[in-house]
């Protein structure tokens, strides 16, 4: 029995049945790893090696291995930290905010986006911990009594808020992701042939049987988790921005930072989701689930947040001028015309100008263009954090201490290394976990068309093939999909 909507565009193409969805998603988990996956993993593992070596150098010889100096005490480490945390945000945005807003299209991309969140936060957490210099004493950031008496952590410090924000964010995302995975683990368990897979997926699926009451409770939990995750996402990047905004450094001391950082996080996060999805859909042959429509929708979100970020850049300049504070004014003129002008203008080009191409319909629906654009945005957002951190620090109130920053090879190694770490985790996820939320995609299948007309874009003369009579839809009802974008 098929349901056809005369007004809605299909969310899943290719006339799938429930069983097809199971097959398509489980294929990757059940099959032997293919050569492309192995090659990708080998590259990722190489960079993971770079990461381990760079971390070893940092821990053994100390933070002196990095290019930091007495003026620029935060540089690549915090840039990378903010960049990774920002990337993580799109996952929660897709899974929580779009769930609350009943955006059904999120279903086929939320799983991978959430995985991206988890892995990005892991990468992000590396930087502040390494930057401590003595990471084996990282527990000092928790409210534990120290060895000298009952001196506690300083709850007035945004850096401590960060500890709470990031650890809460990580554990909440992990729980949300895992609960979402349970029904799909059960599907894989029930299909598993090998004894190891059988036991492993039985353990992972936590005795899930799919009973009606369990589903009902499961949906309640998902909704409430989404409800608490939504403000959580906003709070995390707000707090990250307060690391800067509560200081008195010109260029950082800005009230616009919280919303601006949140928009930037969504911007870079969606860029990374696009990068990953475009690769995943081709490698795992999931074009019917991650459709051009999905890509266009994500592109639109990227463009909107990119424009918000653009407005924020201009607002910062305006406020610097309007505030009449000469240090503030100098900080911004120095950003655009000082020794780091190239970073500033790279940021402007990548984040403000290029995303505007998404207004063009052809670009929005073009896979190569979207791919290039998403990479450009990722680069641009890295530059944004670099510009905010390094250009504000390298010249502040005291000209005698002005300095330049240049990264050491270890700085670069740690950064490139975390990309290796990220992709290693992502590739392992893609091999052993279902990359698409099967249970959820099955719920939206009836929004789509089976055996019948498929979406054809702007073709007024397209006549659909007759479809099965379905309750609620007269057999004579014309089934054409008109674009409304």
């Amino acid at each position, binding site marked *: *029995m098929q349901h056809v909507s005369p007004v809605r565009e299909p969310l899943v193409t290719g006339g799938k049945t*429930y069983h097809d969805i199971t097959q398509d998603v489980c294929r990757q988990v059940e099959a032997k790893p293919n050569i492309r996956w192995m090659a990708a993993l080998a590259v990722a593992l190489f960079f993971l090696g770079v990461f381990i070596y760079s971390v070893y150098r940092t821990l053994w010889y100390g933070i002196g291995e990095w290019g930091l100096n007495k003026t620029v005490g935060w540089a690549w480490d915090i840039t990378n930290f903010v960049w990774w945390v920002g990337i993580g945000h799109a996952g929660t945005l897709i899974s929580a905010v779009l769930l609350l807003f009943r955006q059904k299209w999120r279903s086929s991309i939320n799983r991978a986006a959430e995985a991206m969140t988890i892995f990005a936060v892991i990468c992000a957490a590396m930087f502040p911990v390494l930057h401590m210099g003595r990471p084996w004493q990282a527990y000092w950031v928790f409210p534990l009594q120290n060895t000298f008496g009952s001196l*506690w952590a300083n*709850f007035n410090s945004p850096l401590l808020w960060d500890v709470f924000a990031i650890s809460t964010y990580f554990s909440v995302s992990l729980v949300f992701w895992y609960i979402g995975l349970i029904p799909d683990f059960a599907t894989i368990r029930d299909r598993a042939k090998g004894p190891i897979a059988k036991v492993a997926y039985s353990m992972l699926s936590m*005795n899930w049987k799919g009973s*009606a009451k369990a589903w009902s409770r499961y949906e*309640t939990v998902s909704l409430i988790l989404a409800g608490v995750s939504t403000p959580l996402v906003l*709070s995390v990047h707000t707090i990250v921005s*307060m690391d800067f905004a509560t200081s008195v450094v010109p260029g950082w001391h800005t009230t616009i930072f919280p919303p601006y950082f949140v928009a930037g996080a969504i911007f870079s996060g969606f860029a990374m989701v696009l990068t990953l999805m475009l690769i995943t859909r081709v490698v795992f042959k999931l074009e019917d689930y991650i459709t051009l429509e999905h890509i266009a929708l994500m592109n639109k979100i990227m463009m909107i947040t990119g424009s918000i970020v653009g407005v924020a850049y201009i607002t910062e300049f305006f406020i610097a001028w309007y505030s009449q504070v000469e240090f503030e004014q100098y900080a911004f003129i120095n950003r655009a015309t000082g020794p780091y002008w190239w970073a500033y203008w790279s940021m402007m080009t990548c984040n403000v100008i290029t995303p505007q191409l998404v207004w063009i319909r052809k670009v929005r629906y073009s896979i190569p263009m979207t791919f290039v654009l998403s990479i450009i945005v990722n680069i641009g957002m890295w530059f944004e954090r670099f510009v905010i951190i390094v250009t504000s620090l390298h010249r502040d109130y005291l000209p005698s201490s002005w300095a330049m920053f240049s990264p050491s090879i270890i700085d670069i190694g740690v950064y490139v290394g975390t990309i290796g770490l990220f992709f290693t985790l992502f590739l392992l996820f893609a091999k052993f976990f279902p990359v698409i939320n099967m249970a959820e995609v099955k719920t939206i299948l009836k929004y789509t068309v089976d055996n019948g007309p498929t979406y054809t874009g702007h073709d007024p003369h397209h006549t659909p093939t007759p479809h099965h009579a379905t309750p609620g839809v007269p057999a004579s009802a014309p089934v054409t999909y008109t674009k409304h974008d």
Partner: protein
Amino acid sequence: MTKRFALGVFDDEDVLLHAIENVRAAGVKIYDVFTPFPIHGIDDALGIERSRLPIAAFFYGLCGLSFALWMQIYMLGFDWPMIIGGKPHISLPAFIPVAFELTVLFTCHGMAITFFIITSMYPKPKVQVMDVRSTDDKFVMAIELKDGTSNLGQLTQLLRDNGASEVNEKEMTKN
């Protein structure tokens, strides 16, 4: 202890929903329904009560909030008062971020743990299911067969009349 079940297998969730209503109307008690995805409206059809989880979530959140505020006020206000940046010992605005984060943390984990307990979910090396296809594309209605009182033939007919594509019998060890 083993129990016997009649399993009606359905191919479509809408057919299943009607079948649930009709089977219940015929006075047959449904043991449980197993589906590959959540079906809207099944709660009403089966008479599943509204979950009280949201209430629990609220109280977990309240616990987190109170704990966070108590912790910060006690630590910085009473146990080791320090003046930081000229702020008062108990600087509530500065305590809000941590209070918020812990509210979310407690809500989330409290909810997850409660959910696992009420649905008796825990890692288990071997899971017994009624029908392995119920996690793939089939919708399975399980009706417990009581010795002497249940007539399998009649039940099969009832399920078939309501759109079941097959009716199977299954013995399950009670766990």
